[in-house]
């Protein structure tokens, strides 16, 4: 029986590359392509793929929250997270979200086939950097992982995280309401709750929070003679 794979990445050029890579493998087929997290969740519910490959930095719903929503809907979903960064915090969040695979985009051509094979064999696959982190945490009885953990923050609900991402992406409450099929008043209530829980006072504060907590990812423009920085 064919292994059915759903791809979710906002860059069509990346999806084309992933398709070309995965379709070379006999017995695998791309059953769907999504360009954002919300679309991925909807498509996964309908198509019931064997493996879902999600990019972390997607609009509307990022890859981590996509993973959470997928597994909340069906804990049997097998999700591989694709990322441009392997920071401790992103790794930790991917593991917490329930991803069974974690592959760096730069290594996707090398690792992604192995990752899908691993998940099909009911194993997990993580880039070597994750193995190092997990091992370090084990050897130091959890200190290595917790040492770099962010300070405890009030927990946002899944819906509040969705609203946070959309507001941080610059959408108005009305636009968020349309996207999430809610009333503007409900979105305003979520917005107030988010600001109160996080002790934030402006949308600017919210954007900073979203960046720091991997809810959105941005690229800093590279200036002449300076090193480019990825903010995750």
């Amino acid at each position, binding site marked *: 029986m064919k292994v059915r794979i759903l791809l979710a990445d906002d*860059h069509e*050029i990346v999806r084309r590359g992933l398709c070309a*890579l995965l379709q070379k493998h006999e017995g695998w087929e791309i059953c769907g392509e999504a360009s954002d997290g919300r679309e991925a969740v909807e498509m996964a519910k309908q198509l019931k793929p064997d493996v879902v490959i999600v990019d972390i930095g997607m609009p509307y719903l990022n890859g981590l929250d996509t993973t959470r929503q997928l597994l909340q809907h069906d804990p049997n979903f097998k999700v591989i997270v694709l990322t441009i960064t392997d920071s401790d915090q992103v790794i930790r969040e991917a593991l917490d979200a329930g991803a069974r695979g974690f592959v760096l985009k730069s290594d*996707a051509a090398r690792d992604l086939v192995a990752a899908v094979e691993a998940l099909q064999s009911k194993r997990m696959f993580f880039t070597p950097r994750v193995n190092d982190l997990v091992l370090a945490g084990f050897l130091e009885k959890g200190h290595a992982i917790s040492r770099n953990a962010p300070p405890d923050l009030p927990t946002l609900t899944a819906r509040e995280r969705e609203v946070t991402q959309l507001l941080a992406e610059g959408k108005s409450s009305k636009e968020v309401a349309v996207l999430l099929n809610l009333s503007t008043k409900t979105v305003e209530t979520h917005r107030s709750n988010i600001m109160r829980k996080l002790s934030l006072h402006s949308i600017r504060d919210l954007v900073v929070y979203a960046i720091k907590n991997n809810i959105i990812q941005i*690229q800093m423009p590279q200036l002449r003679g300076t090193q480019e920085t990825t903010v995750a």
Partner: protein
Amino acid sequence: MAVRILLVDDHPIVRQGLRTLLEGRSGWEVVGEASDGIEALDKIETLHPDIVVLDVTMPRMNGLEACRLIQKRQMGAGLEVLFVTQHDSPQMMREALDAGARGYVVKSNAARDLLEAVEAVSQHRVFTALAQIPHAAC
């Protein structure tokens, strides 16, 4: 004669995606790939492409620096540089054009804009397209 294209991006998966898109077009040939600016300069010397499709953010030597060196060293008669980058900003686009590029396409829209951009650049016309701003070829 086929338009010879060199693909330069540090992510093999992106190069594969670009290749898939470009190879469907008759009269165009992807003659090679490079994963950073230094490798790109080497391959320009050996492969003699007509167009270099260049990423901005790469290890060792970024695309802007490579583009400036291509101009400074006057590499390849009629060689054109087309940036394909995730930087969707007028500032970065200006910097790319100042470095000597003939074209600028945002990666999120590459599937939509790349073919038109290569077509324009192969005829030595400027092509720029930010994600939110209509493209211009002149």
